[in-house]
């Protein structure tokens, strides 16, 4: 177990993600100010100081506190969105790989369409129809970024469905549901966990992008993306308003990607040797 911690990707990525979760859970204890209601124009645009560690924004709100609370939004949106994506992708990929035939062709076609059009464009279109806000954000992102999970689960199922233990399950009389969920899924979970972990990172990125465009989280709520958007005009005079939320997004997405990479190193060699 100790040796796993020597893998730098896993340790750094895991560390960042754990820290984020702690920050999100204990946000009220960590943040020195209220992220929304402590607006005080007297302190608008203050640079970083001992009172406001990362400075204040144009309405005088403490940027550090807003970033801390922003972690809650980022993580909630990221995890929920990725759970939806993973569920859709795995369900489609598993069934397409296992059944084959017209269903497989259909799912593959759908996947190719999803991959051909950038996710953010799909999400933009959906958000435009449903209007901004966290619920529509979840729907828009959760329905659009499942193509990778789908492809990977399909490929894994294809390579595994003719192995003897699957044939044994079939000759035992098990039905397709049991075989997909109990026999195949646990054995392809490794690569799917990797994809899902990285997916959380890109979901957070997508949330920030949509919020930046004003289509995601509605302004007073402290989303990192909308914080960035609000900082556009002061970029020259008060760069900290933009830099710190940007840094938060960067570190978070990097953390999930490193964690995914580390998990891949951890899970894949095992998967290959287990034959």
């Amino acid at each position, binding site marked *: 177990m100790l040796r796993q911690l020597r893998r730098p990707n896993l340790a750094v990525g895991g560390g960042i993600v754990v820290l984020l979760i702690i920050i999100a859970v204990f946000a009220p204890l960590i943040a020195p100010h209220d992220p929304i209601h402590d607006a005080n124009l007297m302190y608008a645009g203050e640079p970083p100081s001992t009172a406001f560690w990362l400075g204040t924004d144009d309405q005088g709100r403490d940027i550090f506190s807003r970033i801390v609370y922003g972690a809650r939004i980022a993580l909630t949106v990221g995890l929920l969105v990725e759970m939806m994506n993973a569920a859709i992708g795995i369900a489609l990929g598993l069934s397409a790989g296992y059944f084959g035939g017209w269903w497989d062709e259909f799912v593959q076609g759908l996947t190719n369409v999803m991959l051909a059009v950038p996710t953010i464009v799909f999400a933009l279109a959906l958000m435009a129809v449903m209007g901004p806000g966290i619920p529509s954000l979840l729907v828009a992102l959760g329905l659009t970024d499942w193509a990778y999970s789908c492809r990977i689960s399909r490929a894994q199922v294809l390579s595994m469905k003719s*192995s*003897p*233990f699957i*044939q*044994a*399950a*079939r*000759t*035992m*009389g*098990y*039905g397709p549901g*049991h075989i997909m969920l*109990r*026999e195949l899924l*646990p*054995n392809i979970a490794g690569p799917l966990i990797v994809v899902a972990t990285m997916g959380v990172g890109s979901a957070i990125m997508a949330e920030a992008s949509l919020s930046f465009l004003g289509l995601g989280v509605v302004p007073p709520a402290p989303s990192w993306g909308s914080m960035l958007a609000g900082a556009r005009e002061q970029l020259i005079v008060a760069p900290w308003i933009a830099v710190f939320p940007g840094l938060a997004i960067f570190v978070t997405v990097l953390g999930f990607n490193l964690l995914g990479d580390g998990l891949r190193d951890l899970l894949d060699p095992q998967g290959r040797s*287990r*034959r």
Partner: protein
Amino acid sequence: MTDTATRQDGPGPVLRLQDLHVHYEVRTGQGFGQVPLKAVDGVDLQIRPGECLGLVGESGCGKSSLAQAVMGLVPATSGVIELDGRTDWDRSAATRLARARTVQMVFQDPFSSLNPRQSIATSLGGPLRLHGVTNRSERADRVAEMLRKVGLNPDAARRYPHEFSGGQRQRICIARALIVDPKLVVCDEPVSALDVSIRAQIINLLLQLKDELGVALLMISHDLGVVEHMSDRIAVMYLGRIVEEGAWNAIFSDPAHPYTRTLISAIPDPERADIGHERLRGEAPSALAPPPGCAFHPRCTQAFAPCREGAVPAFTRLAEDHRARCHLLTKDTESR
């Protein structure tokens, strides 16, 4: 679950194949069309209760396709698969379960035949629950009993496949096949992936279980030594067809088909140097383009005109329970 006591082991065979065809559509490298690969091309075969039938042949002769069709893992193109008197095999769940209680399978590679994520208790107990044993402690008891029967400690139930050696895993696979009390177990090269010293253990175990439980075996192997040792009857398969079939001692002491003879003489055994010289020249033709006439004629040293131009040779009855498909056999009877 069928109880052993209520089982009706009447005179009917556990398996009867009638004119079984298994064809696959294969995309060839050239052109766009698909070519039928006739893996199994008209096979009639019977296995009686408690009997061990050995099925031998080179790789690509269709013996594994035959096994898969019997198991329902690949669809039969045409023909009848009668298992324990039943021939209607639709895709319903009830049919699936009934088939599973009639016929089970042991695979070649014990390392990939067990789900690596399932404990042995789940691998063996799950099927019991599927087949209606709802009581948890009864399941545990039956798993333990079956593990003992295959020569393993019942503690094995708590462990996972990777904790076992190849031979032990094959014992577990045999236990899994037998736990639903089938009438026939299809063994597809069950020992060829194992070390020599382990093979003997598994062969002895299979024979012992066959006697003890009265289960019939379809023993598929390319190893004539194994087949001779285990089988009551033997069928020799070549390019999708059975070319000779008979009691084990008839096949080995009086092989009628030239292919059977070359198979027997190809076995390396230093103490049988006298018959080690009947060699096959050339390799088995592809089942995509089987030769006309007798499919064996390009490799046969005794082939004559009818083998090359005539029809596929029909079975000639040589003795009670011994028959072979070879034009030479009818030539002999005609000239006599």
